[in-house]
């Protein structure tokens, strides 16, 4: 019988760091000298999931590229709260142009670097769900189609938060926004990771701010691939979704644990790995704490709508095999 050492580290890799783990397996965020790419003093709301997700992702990308990184930013919360003139929170080379052209700007930067022979410097484009799934979609699709050497990161908080919570094509069914006061309708939706995969690009992944290790591993993986890559990060929005500021991570965790937001990786259009649900929960656990879904529970419980949302979650579980057999 071969010797199998007992490896058990109290919290394993669930927590950000773990003093019991060997140093080389610790997360970037646990490092005392992490880049803090998005620094203190930014004007994001209390408990902002996007600010957190952006620092997680860009710090990991900085780590993976040994700090040779340029980022292009679409208009949106992330741009507005981080760079009110003349201040900036970014501690990396960073450019903002228009709402819809982040992918195109990044493509241009990548092309210029290629001409200059600087293959060591890597390019990231980033934006919210509005700048990605709606306004910047054409430029993004073009970037995918040409397989430009850019990692595009979408921080998905499921509406236009910066301008006052208007519906986007990423807003989930039944969610109340300023423009869907009775709750968003059950449309076809616009699954961008799936669309990215349809382009057959080398790497597509989804992540949430509730699973840091998984998120960092995906950024690391993406930075070691050339060509167009897409990372879709689920970031909660306390103000727009109507949950307490300290619940941002819990809400993101519930999105994954209910099956509403599948966390997976795909290469060349093929799903290669999924992050399994640790303990399957009903969608109501996710919906109830958020005021944008309050109309599902009062004045009467809309079992019909909740059932449709549950169906969607169950479909994800089946489609991606989210539960360990």
């Amino acid at each position, binding site marked *: 019988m071969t010797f199998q050492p007992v490896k*058990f580290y109290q919290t394993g890799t669930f*927590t950000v760091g773990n003093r019991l783990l060997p140093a080389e397996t610790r997360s970037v*965020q*646990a490092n005392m000298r992490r880049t803090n790419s998005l620094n*203190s003093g930014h004007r994001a709301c209390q408990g902002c999931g996007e600010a957190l997700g952006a*620092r997680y992702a860009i710090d990991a990308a900085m780590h993976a590229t040994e700090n040779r990184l340029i980022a292009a930013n679409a208009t949106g919360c992330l741009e507005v709260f981080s760079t009110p003139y003349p201040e900036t929170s970014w501690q990396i080379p960073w450019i903002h142009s228009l709402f819809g052209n982040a992918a195109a700007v990044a493509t241009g930067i990548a092309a210029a670097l290629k001409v200059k022979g600087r293959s060591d410097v890597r390019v990231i484009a980033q934006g919210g769900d509005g700048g990605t799934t709606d306004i910047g979609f054409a430029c993004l699709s073009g970037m995918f189609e040409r397989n430009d050497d850019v990692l595009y990161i979408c921080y998905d908080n499921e509406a236009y938060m910066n301008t006052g919570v208007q519906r986007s094509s990423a807003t989930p069914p039944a969610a109340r926004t300023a423009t869907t006061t009775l709750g968003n309708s059950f449309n076809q939706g616009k699954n961008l990771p799936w669309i990215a995969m349809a382009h057959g690009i080398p790497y597509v992944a989804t992540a949430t701010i509730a699973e840091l290790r998984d998120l960092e591993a995906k950024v690391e993986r993406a930075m070691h691939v050339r060509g167009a890559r897409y990372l879709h990060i689920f970031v909660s929005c306390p103000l727009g979704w109507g949950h307490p500021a300290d619940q941002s*991570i819990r809400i993101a965790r519930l999105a994954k644990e209910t099956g509403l937001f599948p966390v997976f990786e795909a290469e060349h259009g093929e799903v290669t790995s999924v992050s399994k649900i640790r303990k399957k929960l009903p969608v109501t656990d996710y919906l109830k704490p958020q005021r944008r879904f309050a109309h599902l529970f009062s004045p009467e419980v809309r079992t019909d709508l909740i059932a449709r949302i549950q169906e969607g979650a169950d479909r994800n579980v089946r489609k991606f095999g989210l539960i360990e057999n």
Partner: protein
Amino acid sequence: MRKPFAITLDPGSSLANHTGTWRTLRPEYVDRLPPCNAACPAGENIQGWLWHAECGDYEAAWRLLTEQNPLPATMGRVCYNPCESACNRGALDEAVGINSIERFLGDEAIKRGWQFEKNELNGKRVLVVGAGPTGLSAAYHLARLGHQVQVREAGPLAGGMMRFGIPKYRLPRDVLDAEIARILALGIELKLNAKVTNLLEEKKNGNFDAVFLGVGAHIGKRAYIPAGTSMRMLDAVSVLRSMEGEAPPLLGRRVVVYGGGNTALDVARTAKRLGATESIIVYRRTREKMPAHDFELEEALQEGVMVKWLSTIKQAGESSILVEKMRLDATGFPQPTGEYETLETDSVVLALGQDVDLGLLDGVPGLEVKDGSVQIGANMMTGHPGVFAGGDMVPGERTVTVAVGHGKKAARHIDAWLRATAYEKKPSGEPASFDRLNPWYYSDAPKIVRPQLDLIRRQSTFDEVVGGLGERNALFEARRCLSCGNCFECDNCYGVCPDNAVIKRGPGKRYEFNYDYCKGCGLCAAECPCGAIRMVPEAL
């Protein structure tokens, strides 16, 4: 510098924007009192020593443990672990096996020969009467506080009930000897076969500044049972004591033990090992009402001990006893039914509790005795100034761990009393209850169960029944600790702050908040696995 069109300001860092002014709630690091620590009768800092054990630094763990309790290898065998009953992990899967880790640390210390650090003597002399768990504990703590200690023991060996009450199969004597020797190595003088009969005279003659009494409760209680001339009637304490002598007690092939406490089980199991074919416990109530611990009963039943529930002994004949059936009334009290049955037996052992031998206290003024126990104040002092008492002779639960706790507490009060001050216990934090935790972060891990000796060997030998954990298993078990209410440096607060407002100070130094930028969102507190951060309203 010429600036581009419409640009008039130089770019600056957002660090100029002190977002801390937005805050209405302020996070603070706290150390809460973990339930294990709160439940420990010996006042061990269990969460604290587990922290060292988790890192594999067993010596540091042992040193922290023995700051409170000098007998970990003994505790890891005989303690009824109230810590594990209180453990928050019990609400998650199963309690952390604190007792088995304690035993591992204790055994490791004996194996590696770790010794206690000596303290400089301060010139005060204290007499400790009784070398049982409470006396040894008091002597140990007094010696570490710099007092010169003399221990007087009436018996031929030190250990008290740990030696003369607890059978070998639960506590091997080499373990006990090693732990006692290490305590005595602090420079404590032990006088054996030296019963104290006149306390005040001894105190005066020996120039002692204070006295600690820990003489225990060694006199078996009797019950009136009309008996024939030839029936062997013994008491449990004498039976267990004679197990340490040259000749084992003569109990015969059929033994009846009367009583339902742990001592009754000890005797019944001992009788079985001595070759009794039938070892029967007669108890007047039901299993649920039995004061003995259920795991011990379970072990006894496995070994073939039988129990007659709801029964009392009415009469003892020549080679049999008359047993009356009982029934529980509405208040749970046993009532006679008038139904009788005869039970063949060679001897009857009474295990009905113990009384304190108070002979040495005759003529000590101020001392108060109530219900056979010596009364003490909150500082463990009796009515006579300078005479303190603890263990089984004072009111309270009679276990080894409680006794050790008494010894420690008394030692601290004696030390303060000798300095003409009062000992102030450091205030402990708010309780770290389960609802304070964020258990999502802990890895799933079932408890490691200790190995048990073969049943055949348990029925015929006095070998230790419960085995110990190996190093890897002990490490695994230690890492199951949730570190309730005390930071274990998981970096979660440092990671989850959207505003980089947590400063990591490096290994072992924990974290601090940067209140210039902390917006008070509370994510750190919500995502702290162990509940070591609290949010308090900001003064406006």
